[in-house]
């Protein structure tokens, strides 16, 4: 069964304290690995897509990387506005309808 697991479940950071979120997957024949940001009471918002091991994507203070077994979301010098839940999801090569399997998310709180 395809599975996506995120760790830690929650992360409390001081402003400026860099850290990394982990997303491990057992999705067979991974076609793509996706990162989303979700603010309280809102729907997830797309951040990145990674397709192959070694690939990296950056956006402001966020950088996503992909290996053959896991992906990391690095938050460099975070600010309070980076506080959110970060979700990763994978999709199989053979998945009809572009179906995504989501992890449980990591809740990030950045304190000033």
């Amino acid at each position: 069964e395809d599975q996506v697991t995120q760790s830690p479940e929650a992360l409390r950071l001081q402003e400026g304290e860099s850290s990394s979120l982990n997303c491990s997957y057992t999705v067979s024949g991974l076609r793509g690995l996706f990162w989303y940001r979700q603010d309280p009471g809102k729907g997830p918002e797309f951040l990145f897509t990674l397709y192959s091991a070694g690939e990296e994507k950056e956006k402001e203070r966020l950088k996503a990387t992909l290996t053959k077994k896991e992906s990391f979301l690095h938050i460099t010098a975070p600010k309070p506005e980076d506080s959110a839940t970060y979700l990763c999801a994978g999709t199989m090569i053979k998945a009809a309808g572009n179906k995504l399997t989501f992890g449980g998310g990591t809740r990030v709180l950045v304190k000033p």
Partner: protein
Amino acid sequence: NAGVTQTPKFRILKIGQSMTLQCAQDMNHNYMYWYRQDPGMGLKLIYYSVGAGITDKGEVPNGYNVSRSTTEDFPLRLELAAPSQTSVYFCASSLGQAAGELFFGEGSRLTVL
């Protein structure tokens, strides 16, 4: 552009009642999805559609039905509501099979008492 619009935002149902969650998108996307999100859990796919007139089951379809008569609309029907259907429901759309980016609505919070 409004993107993906869901209604209602909040609803309380009694056990055994039925209702429809509405979802509309104005981006001319072919693919549409319904997910549910329970506290501390990831999003679980209920149903999806790859185009008007075509729907298919996701991971957790029991107790739900969908229809897709137009490209824009993808309503989710709950029949005989049960407490286990208490959740936040998200509708999403995407351009096509190769497009990984899903656009989500703001969610509908449903409580079944």
